[in-house]
């Protein structure tokens, strides 16, 4: 459905603009998660449920939690207790929650009226994507796994030094 696509697109642009212009990193993170969810809805509408699941689970889930952990680590100190009270205040989460509510209404609408989603395109099932990944793109998958292994090793190496210094710091 065209309307669903344009509403998601407007939400994505608005949430991304808000994410880039916020002063507080946690507020920006919340808006960026909303932007990722909007892009996930767009993927779903474009007949790509596998990519939609990936963007929600990996991007909005894992990567953003990593960001949140680092922001929380950097905010250590006397400020953190007052910061926590700020994060629980409605003005922190009212905006992202409102945008997410629009997205979930839209998604429920698309799920309740089959055919409203996937504008004029056949849905590409995860099975087809998996067959493509482990067929013609097998070398790419191996390279991606090596890249992720290098990322794990690099993050471990960098993080080990930080924990040693941080332990002495306290």
């Amino acid at each position, binding site marked *: 459905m065209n309307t669903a696509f344009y509403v998601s697109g407007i939400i994505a642009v608005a949430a991304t603009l808000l994410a880039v212009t916020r002063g507080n990193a946690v507020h920006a993170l919340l808006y960026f998660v909303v*932007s990722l969810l909007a892009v996930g809805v767009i993927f779903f509408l474009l007949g790509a449920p596998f990519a939609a699941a990936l963007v929600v689970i990996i991007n909005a889930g894992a990567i953003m939690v990593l960001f949140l952990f680092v922001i929380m680590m950097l905010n250590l100190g006397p400020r953190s207790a007052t910061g926590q009270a700020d994060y629980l205040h409605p003005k922190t989460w009212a905006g992202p929650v409102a945008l997410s509510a629009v997205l979930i209404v839209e998604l429920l609408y698309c799920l309740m009226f089959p055919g409203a989603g996937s*504008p004029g395109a056949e849905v590409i099932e995860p099975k087809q994507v998996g067959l493509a990944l482990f067929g013609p793109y097998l070398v790419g998958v191996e390279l*991606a796994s090596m890249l992720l292994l290098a990322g794990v090793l690099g993050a471990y190496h*960098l993080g080990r*030094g930080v924990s040693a210094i941080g332990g002495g710091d306290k």
Partner: protein
Amino acid sequence: MATVPLESALILAAVLFVIGLAGVLIRRNIIFVLLSIEIMFNACGLAFVTAGWYLGGPAGQAMYFFILAAAAAEVAVALGLILHMRLAFGTLDTDKIDRMKG
């Protein structure tokens, strides 16, 4: 049923990419720079999935999978570097660390 024109989806991807690029250029807090790089990754993924939808095959989603792997590895290493930057310089301002001295 009316279909979404290819142009509008690609324009959306371009707008998101430009917002991310502006964020990289304007923001001085390195957390926001990293967030903007994530926005740009995401916009690229949207362009790939849109192209895959237009061409009708699993190739676009397969490419999105690779983009996601690259983004995940990049974020893991970059956040470790940010922690070191905070410990070494006591700041998150990218303008304060513009000297390359070992």
